[in-house]
């Protein structure tokens, strides 16, 4: 198992390196990790107020209703 995982690991690093060129001046491992993140992801397209207090202040300022989502934690930063 260890040998096959090692081979898979090395093969994966080659694939990642070829698919996403590393930014200049970056640590190679850091570049590989950063290349995993999807740009323009759905989760980040809405800026959520993190409290009802903040939301109501903004609702009164903008004369808009609140769309409230009861979530596990922060919807743009967390697994759920």
């Amino acid at each position, binding site marked *: 198992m260890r040998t096959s*995982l090692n081979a898979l690991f090395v093969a994966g690093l080659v694939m990642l390196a070829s698919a996403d060129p590393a930014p200049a001046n970056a640590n190679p491992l850091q570049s590989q990790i950063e290349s995993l993140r999807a740009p323009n992801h759905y989760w980040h397209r809405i800026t959520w107020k*993190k409290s009802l207090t*903040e939301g*109501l202040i903004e609702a009164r300022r903008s004369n808009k209703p609140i769309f*409230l989502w009861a979530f596990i934690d922060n919807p743009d930063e967390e697994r*759920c």
Partner: protein
Amino acid sequence: MFAGAVRETVLSDPNVINRLKSQFVPVAIRAADLNFPGIDGEGQLIRTIAPSKLAQQGLCVLNSSGQALSWVVTFRDGKSVESFLDRSLELFRANPNGNQPWRTERYMQFPEGRTADGLVEPRYEQCSSILLKANGSVVPPPSSGMLVRLTGRALDQHGRLLADTLQQEHYVEHKVELPSYMQQQLINAVKANGDNRFPLPTLLANWIIEQAYLGQLDMQPLREGPHSGYNQVPVCTLYAQRNGANGIDIGGETEVSVSCPVRPEDGANYSNHIKLHWQGFVEFDDTTIHKMLLLGRGVEQAHWESFAASLSKHGGVCPSRDTLVQFLPSGHPFSIDCPVVFGFEGLAANSHLSIVPSNKESNRE
């Protein structure tokens, strides 16, 4: 699961996203706060809407005094999501300020599954008083640990990243804190072992194993609590070895599994089995880790379905979005068996760590 299903269906539609940004004020609160509101001003505001909720989690539209205009749990189909937004705007126009009694419309499924309305007293004066005291100041809780950003991807059989990043069994982003005491344990162990390789402290090893998985929260290995499944860790050879005055190399193998044949409350049947090879390093000073990079690569076999939404009911494939919005509380069924990769990037609390991709601003049109 509800939250993940909402994010993958309702909140992935570009029209819905644009409407929420332009016609509403999007607010996300913790489900725990909805179900157990505090005694401060925020708690008082939440306590007003809590009695009319239909479930532990949900979607709600409120006017500017915090009166719940409408609640919804699921939708008939994709089009119904926008119809719900239309209906909620009508209700808002009829009662924008909350200075009159109101009947909250409540839908287990919009539009047909309407249940008894909830009754709400006028709220304008009371809400104004709370907001005046808050004065717009909402202070986030302090963080004492290291912020770690995790990204997980599923790969195809050729080792290429899968293009789909919508569903959590293919793509995960997660921010989590590495507690100070785990950092201290590692630093103490390095000092005690000199240049020798030593096993990573168990708490830190488990912390790594717990984060590195695809799928929703229910699929987390080593999760404790009433909803957790049966866990096994047959392999954990994570090690650390000093590399220079302030560096530590980390490596090793991990294998972990979690399974639950039938969860009593919702009939969920799930399993997750992850094998990973790790490589990484840590930079530290006397008391604190100030940088951590870890890459785990291997394979993951995961399966999830429930009574409400099972693969067998849908010909072995994941149902369409039109169907999935009917089953938000149970999430969508899936099964994966593929190569995976996980990256951890941690910087000390006083360092800048952008949790959002650098091109985020360009998406906020």
